[in-house]
């Protein structure tokens, strides 16, 4: 996987990490954290591609309104990562 330097840093102590699978690869993310935030903290700022122009898109409003942060979560497509929280064993497929 392409490593991107994280563009965010944490001010607060994070929760204990649990294992999730992003595009099939194991990652340790803070349990209960907003999934979009956890992905951004990993340097993953692109979550999907736009339908016609095929441009990269990522979290924008982070309040469930804009639908630019969607991913396939546990097999269900078009789930907003800003509405989901990190759970142990979660499978996240990004269409990057």
């Amino acid at each position, binding site marked *: 996987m392409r490593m991107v330097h994280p563009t965010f840093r944490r*001010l607060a102590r994070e929760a204990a990490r649990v294992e999730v699978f992003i595009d099939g690869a194991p990652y340790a993310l803070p349990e209960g954290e907003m999934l979009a935030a956890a992905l951004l903290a990993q340097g993953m700022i692109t979550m999907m591609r736009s339908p016609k122009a095929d441009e990269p898109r990522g979290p924008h409003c982070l309040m469930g309104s804009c639908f630019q942060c969607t991913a396939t979560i546990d097999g269900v497509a078009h789930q907003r990562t800003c509405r989901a929280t990190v759970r142990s064993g979660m499978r996240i497929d990004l269409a990057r």
Partner: protein
Amino acid sequence: MSEDIVIVGAGPAGATAAIRLAESGIGCALLDDNAQAGGQIYRAGAAPKDLPGIDPRGMELRASLAHHRALIDFRPQHEVVALHGDRRLWARGPDGNIATFAPRHLVLATGAIEVSVPVSGWTSPGVYTLGGLQILLKAAGMVPDRPAVLGGAGPLLYLVAAQLAAAGVPLAAVIDAAPWPTLTQIAGMARRPDLLAQGMRYALELKRRGVAVLRRHAVIAIDGEGGGRSVVAAPLDGDWRPRGEARRRIAAEIVALGFGLRPNTELTQLAGCAHDHDPRRGGWFARRSADCETTVPGIFVVGDGGGIGGAERALAEGTIVADVLARRTGKADGGLAAQAERARRALAPLESFRAALESWSGLRPGIFEAAAPETIICRCEDVRRADVDAALAGGLALPRGLKLATRAGMGLCQGRTCAPALQHLIAREAGIAPSEMPLPTVRMPTRPVPAAALAALSPAIDEAAR
């Protein structure tokens, strides 16, 4: 499920209403799409308490809701996906299942949506709304670790900038479309000296930390990505139209833009409530009586959904509507009535404060001219300014015709993000005021629901289609 009172939205307005009712011994169901109560303004999580503008009243509201859990049936992570004028509503819960309610009294406290102005590059990952960047701070305790530019107008710009500056974020610039407030505007804001002082503290925080504030300017393009990203800032005329000369380029890896708030009218539109338009209240909002009741009997609106009024007015209206409901349900309470009377007296100074704030920073329509022909307006369907202009030139003046021709506003977000820009472009082409435009249509379900949940929702959709 039948509850006497259902409240949608657990921000300052909705949560206050639920708590005041419970204090008078009256129960309700309180639905919110977030995992915790507080709304966007009091959003819970991980923000350090010593940052500017982190309000302890959010924690107090959450503690009070928990204290009254015997009377307040709090349903977090419930999104309302359908509603009828007879107050039957359908909410999608965290398990994906649909819960139905048919309350005698329905209080809608669904708050506001940030107004976005499309500019080239605003669709690129790493570009956020101001509220979005602040949610990362509040909910996850995360701040940019790279140079950032914040732009737009209004109090949220200064609040987020002050918070990030205090957290040590390198702010390359704060770009404000508004000029300095005039003395008249400051005098109006001084009707609430505490709120005026709050705003001045944010501005002072930026000055103290040496953050460059560019006034009467706006970000009109975002180029490049990652460490090579930069923004173009242009000076604005009095209508906020970008001017050609004296543009400057500022390097920034993270960009956040927001041009104020507009009322979230999705549910009041579905319920068939009448709406009024006032640019000083953020555009379209639900029409209400002094008792916060909409034109549909039994449906009440409190907080920003009734016209942008801020958290202080939301708190006051939560108390006012609780008193109204206590009387309507035959459980009038002298203590609550006295609290509501005090809350009503707080409204006039808040109104003056808000009018002055809007006069200073309220969005001027020229800013929408920042979109170039190739700029994407509708992010969901990749519709560009040139597509919209071409469709309008072909005589499609109504939003519906434009949508069918271009698919603008027909994506997953249902036009929530691009509505202000589309409305402006249509009104300008048609030569009418935005208030003469029809409200953008809202369709059920308001959020995508899984196929399994559709069965529970189908009666609502069928009726709406009839």
